[in-house]
């Protein structure tokens, strides 16, 4: 169980969060199938530091950008995605 230091809620166990994976920018909807399906399916899946999206579903319900080392599970950065709809 990792500790994720949520910028809104403080240190919390990872089971309060849901994992969203690598952040892949969404292409224009007018794009070709190959580009769209790269967005849907293809992943770098690197080993080491990874920028990924998490959702604090049982906390502030904010989406977060996290930098995590996916071998050691060390976390070096957690920020709110910044959109302030519900703020």
């Amino acid at each position, binding site marked *: *169980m*990792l500790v994720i230091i949520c910028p809104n809620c*403080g240190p919390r166990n990872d089971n309060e969060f849901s994992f969203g994976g690598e952040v892949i920018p969404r292409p224009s909807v007018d*794009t070709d199938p190959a580009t769209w399906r790269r967005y849907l399916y293809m992943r770098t899946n690197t080993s080491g530091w990874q920028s990924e999206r998490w959702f604090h579903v049982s906390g502030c319900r*904010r*989406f977060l950008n996290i930098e995590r080392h996916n071998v050691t*599970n060390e976390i070096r950065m957690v920020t709110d*995605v910044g959109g*302030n709809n*519900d703020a």
Partner: protein
Amino acid sequence: MRDHRLDPQPGELIDRSETVSFTWNGRRLEGLEGDTIASALAANGVRVLSRSFKLHRRRGLLTATYHDPNAMVQVGDEPNVRAAHLNVSEGMEVSAQNVWPALSFDVKAANQLVSRLLPPGFYYKTFMAPRRLWPWYQRVLGRFVAGGVVNPEHQGGEYDHRFAHPDVLVAGSGPTGMAASLAAAEAGASVILVEEEPALGGHIRFGDDSDLGALADLRAAIEGQPLIEVMTDAVVAGRYDHNWVSVVQRDMAHVEERLVLARVKTLVVAAGTLERPYVFRGNDLPGVMLSTAVRRLINLYAVKPGDRAVVLTANQSGDAAITDLERAGVEIAAVLDARTGETVVEATGRKGVKTVVDSNGRRIDADLLVTAIGWTTPTALLNMAGDRPVYHSGAARFLPSSLPTNVLAAGGMVGDGTTDQLVEHGTAVGHEAAVRAEAVKATWRGGAPEATPRDIKGLDVEDHPELYRSTTHGFVDFSEDVTSEDLFSAAAEGYDSMELAKRYTTAGMGPVQGKVEAVNALAVHGEAVGTSLLETSTTTWRPPYAPIRLGTLAGQYHDPVRYSPIHPWHESHNARPLIAGQWIRPDHYGDPQAEVGAVRSSVGIIDVSPLGKIDLRGADVPRLLEFVYVNKWSKLEIGKVRYGMMCAEDGVIMDDGVTGRLSPDRYMMSTTSGGAGVVWNWLDDWLQTSFPEWDVKMTAVSDGYASINVAGPNSRELVSRLTDIDLDPHQFGYMEVRTGTVARIADCFLWRIGFTGELSYEIHVPANHGLEVWESLLEEGQDLEVRPFGVEAQRIMRLEKGHFIVGQDTDGLTQGFGFGIDWAIKMDKPDFSGKPELAWQKQRGDYPRLVAVQTDDPSIVPPEASQIIDREAGIVGRITSSRMSPTLDRSVCLAQVAHNRAAAGEKLDIRLPNGTTVPATVMEHLAHFDPEGTRLRV
């Protein structure tokens, strides 16, 4: 029988005023309060505790600790109990495992005679032909399983979990661990001190007077320190990422065991060392014991371990054992000092040690052979923290190499020292642990750590001879009956890396998990392949450090369920419960077919509270709806509701429901019951990550409203009796929403929709009034013969009406087109979730279609998931929903079929689970009943 109990010893754990009677293989014996099962048996002169796994050799105490490979017994219902750890209690029924018919005479001991024919992995080389006999071979092999017996009637027992948040957790309570705890607490840290044995002290419990004095002082100091919580008879089982630490507490008053889940800021591992057995011929005979084992027996339990002993010693522990044995009146037949090159070559005897052969060829009569040839560092917790311990040839043991800053190793884990030196080292480590814990907390508070980690000067390492195997072969893994000869032959056969050899011979795979045998195995295997593996390898232990009962891991298992506010009524009216995800809902109240009849002929009510409800407000709600639904929303008028379907970015249908506009900028979205959370998160994702500038405020209100669907031709009449809302069809038409009071409850909203195909009003009332409104509806509708209906009746009616259910009639690959609502998918919208995939789907055209299907024989209901087959093409579709329709008095189905088999009138063959095929026909409309929808629009 002779009593082997000694006169009182200064550090003994037993209470001589309390005798405890128990049985051993049915024979009644007495021990003392404070005795372990093993010490009580030893006091009674019992030397043979078990038979070995493969060869069924007699085995006695070896380490006299929890991790003794030879001391696993059955206690009542419980298999594999550690006899050298668990205290004996009144009435306990203890028996030997792995014996038939009896411990003293075991038929399978015949395996010893053919042991040469049963080399490691022998089963990989035989039993292959003839193939038909393989099941029989398997049954025979199965009979040779070691281990105790599980009682099918065993009822579990009480277990629980506790969450703890100590600053510092110290594993091990020898002088180092006690000192570390005290120093950390003095620096202001909250501390949990965990000790595997029943009392604090570690090895100084069987030390000399000055050790016992130091122990008393340390214990008193700990008792006086409120910041230290002591857990004895508890074990640190695992260290996981971010210092998440599990502790099993065994000596609990109200539960069998407790699992402590601790978020530890700094973990101090002060686990000391484990004594290692020596490998030589006969090293598993009862009577061959480690020096610490005899010292435990004598000092802690006042048991005389034998009459005449040979001691092989390479260190102070062996020397101290000689002193203890002499004090206990054991005759010392010979001392073999390994520091001068003397050693043991062989021990012989049938039921136990009788003769010891030394390296000078002397044959010495003895019933006890004590070995003190070295130590294993129990680095399990360090391994779990990522450490790869390194072999130190001078110390003849592994030492930690590099640890994360939140883990510190102390005491015997890192070096050697006198009790004073260990206390000094523990104190320094404990203080540093407290400082580091503060730094972690500072980071958690969002600040910078207040201090950088400081290195603590380690202990010196004493020279120790490297002793692993004598000139003869003996057992390396006692639990698995693996000898050094087996390791040699595995290496010769090509299993020449430790990992392969371990897997091939199963050395280290048994209940002791390497604590006793791992380092010997590495040394012997290295000898076999001709390189010092100790120098080039490391030891790895996987969690848990000690085995944990499944009950302890489970704790008080809770899987939450959800009930509607109307649930008490359902329960008291014999509703058959339906488990739907987390929800427990009424499936029916006894007769679902009659419930359908009531709705179709007059009026019924169903509790649909589990429906997801999301309150959406703000100027940009229409933009959000346009984006997440496939259909159009920009022109939804106030008071209107509309059906919507959501697709994911791959075009796959993810949810559906209706959304209504209650006021200029307030909307209410409904979702499926199972999709409520998913949709809520989905909307938040888009709003936060893609459209942060939109003005949308979102609140999930699923639990805020109880929802009741009133359905049937008389639903208008019934609802009108309870509401101030004008239900005149010209004022409140189909697919519209109104707000008002129901049964005098304010702030309700109603929408007029028709999942069942009947005129119906879905009433959403503030949740705490749900039951009241439900009862009012039943009360007011008595003359209309109103009847509650459950999920089953609703499913029948929606199927009659041809409405699909996401997740039942659709599957993980079902994209938007082909499900009867193609008209609603607006490809002219500039953007919406899944749009590109839907465009390509439409272009392709070859996607499966949802169709209504009727069997030619109306009495046959093909079970859901029956396959639709074609002689040439194979599977061309499947039945996704099917029921007997009480309304039509025939079976009705929905099916997914291939695009070229979906035309109205198409003949299909449905294969039933019993293998027969029945003919059926594709219908013109999805609705089997009232396809024009006249009943909805009255």
